[in-house]
């Protein structure tokens, strides 16, 4: 098991390096430069060159590239070109809302989608199933930012039930512990609903299909024949096998979720990673973009490995084959 994990980790190193190198060259070779916003026509060429030199942009691109790669392995991601704050700190601060948002939505999306999927599969081809399926089709086809926009304007702006922006209130530090938790919950409710609905539609789709397949299989028929209760058959016998595809999409869903957080953080003005990266991309803040991309790639790789491991845990046959 541990060996399997190590092999996986080593196999993903080239993916990581190629991926981040691609990002490096995309942003360094594209037109525009972070320097231009500091320049005005009145500045003399000497000062201009000095600014360019301060940012290290006068060196050849390959030189910058190798220096950057070397620094990554020392965990040195440089400083933001915008405000001089170390990239590490920027990302550390921005990571909290993003992680809270993604894990809460993944949690609720998984539970909601799976439960509805099981219900729909058990009531296959009935009226309930048709209603659920068309509702889920609607969710599956809806861009999450539209749901977010509607929720925001209805519940935050018109009805004032939830705050419309940020992850904590202004007076957050004066709150007691439970008030702080309540503060987080009230700020995160709308974004989490927004994000978990499309996720649940995805899990629903796979759970329903695989649950239908499993319920048709012989061992379920045998269990029924032996008079085992309906609930036990579903939760003890069928569910474990029906959840297999959910685990494999758990690995695929992390990159998708990362995309989802970008628009949702922009709508709800959460100071998270996605929003930080969009702003960095617009300001050509190279070190922040690169730092964020490195993190994104690491997240994708780790989630793939976790999905592989979960796969083996749920289905021991896979381990035996390898």
């Amino acid at each position, binding site marked *: 098991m541990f060996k399997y994990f190590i092999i996986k980790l080593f196999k993903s190193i080239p993916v990581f390096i190629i991926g981040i190198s691609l990002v490096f060259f995309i942003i360094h070779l594209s037109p525009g430069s972070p320097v231009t916003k500091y320049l005005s026509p009145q500045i003399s060429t000497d000062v201009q060159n000095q600014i360019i030199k301060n940012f290290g942009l006068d060196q050849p691109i390959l030189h910058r590239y190798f220096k950057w790669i070397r620094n990554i392995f020392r965990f040195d991601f440089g400083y933001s070109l915008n405000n001089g704050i170390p990239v590490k700190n920027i990302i550390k601060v921005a990571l909290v809302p993003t992680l809270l948002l993604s894990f809460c939505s993944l949690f609720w999306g998984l539970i909601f989608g799976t439960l509805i999927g099981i219900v729909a599969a058990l009531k296959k081809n009935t009226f309930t199933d048709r209603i659920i399926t068309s509702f889920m089709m609607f969710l599956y086809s809806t861009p999450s930012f*539209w749901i977010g926009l509607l929720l925001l304007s209805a519940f935050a702006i018109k009805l004032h039930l939830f705050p419309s922006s940020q992850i904590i209130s202004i007076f957050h530090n004066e709150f007691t512990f439970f008030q702080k938790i309540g503060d987080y919950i009230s700020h995160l409710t709308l974004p989490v609903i927004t994000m978990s609905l499309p996720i649940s539609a995805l899990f629903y789709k796979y759970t329903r299909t695989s649950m239908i397949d499993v319920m048709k299989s012989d061992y379920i028929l045998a269990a029924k024949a032996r008079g085992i209760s309906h609930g036990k058959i579903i939760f003890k016998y069928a569910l474990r096998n029906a959840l297999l595809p959910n685990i494999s999409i758990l690995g695929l869903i992390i990159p998708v979720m990362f995309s989802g957080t970008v628009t949702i953080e922009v709508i709800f003005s959460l100071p998270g990673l996605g929003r930080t990266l969009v702003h960095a991309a617009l300001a050509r803040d190279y070190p922040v973009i690169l730092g964020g991309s490195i993190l994104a790639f690491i997240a994708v790789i780790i989630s793939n490995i976790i999905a592989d491991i979960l796969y083996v845990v749920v289905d021991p046959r896979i381990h035996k084959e390898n």
Partner: protein
Amino acid sequence: MIKLITKIWKNKNGKFGLIIISVILFFSIFAPILTSFNPTMQNLNIVLQKPSFSHVLGTDYYGRDLFTRILYGSRVSLSISIIASAISVLFGTLIGVISGLSGKYTDNILMRIVDIMLGFPKFFILILVISMGSFSIFNTIIVLSLFSWMDTARLTRTETLLLNNTTFIKAAKAMGMNKLQIIFHHIIPNISGIVISSYSLLTGSMIILESGISFLGLGVQPPNASWGSILNEARLDPLGGWWVMLFAGIAIVTTVIGFNLLGDGLKEILQPEHYQDD
């Protein structure tokens, strides 16, 4: 072609999808005939009017007719997503077939590339690339299709591998057909069903991607409209009319549902063995 359409018509999902898409294409193509307003002309006397007889869906923050803007916006959104998914499906099929037919090394290298590309946080890379260059429809199509061909490649590779082991392909090889002949006479016709249905599904997700980019203000630039940029204008003015965000969103969702239904329908028609008793 006519045979395929009658088959789609008999399938419930496919029928609904086909109807929705045809209606939307009709609206988009005949936009100048269907509306007498100009999508970019501002009229500050009629700012933010509710839906009425003269303005079916109301007017937006600058007094432009929303119905007109949604019609003209559909042209941008649809043309970008239809062309981009066509390019990526063709490219993906090409890579998938090559990878499925060729031996170990090429297959390995191509699939590694697919793995790397799938590992990319796609939407973020799109934002990055589009915000770096300047926006044009052409650029957006290229970038969208560059990062969307991988799923089709995987799918067609698996199918090609399966087909390559069948008896009739072996017979074709024994009869001395070369690789190109096998690809064009046997493999492409047999995987075309999967390719067409994945094209329809991909177009749906492309529309969401494109509108997401425009929603962040990176896509179509004002005063031109796309569905995403209409929603972006609604986001920037949340106290304004509810109808602006409602109708633009409904346009996106309906279109995506149309393409998804058609894709599901095509899947059911063209690979019937997977769907015998569901």
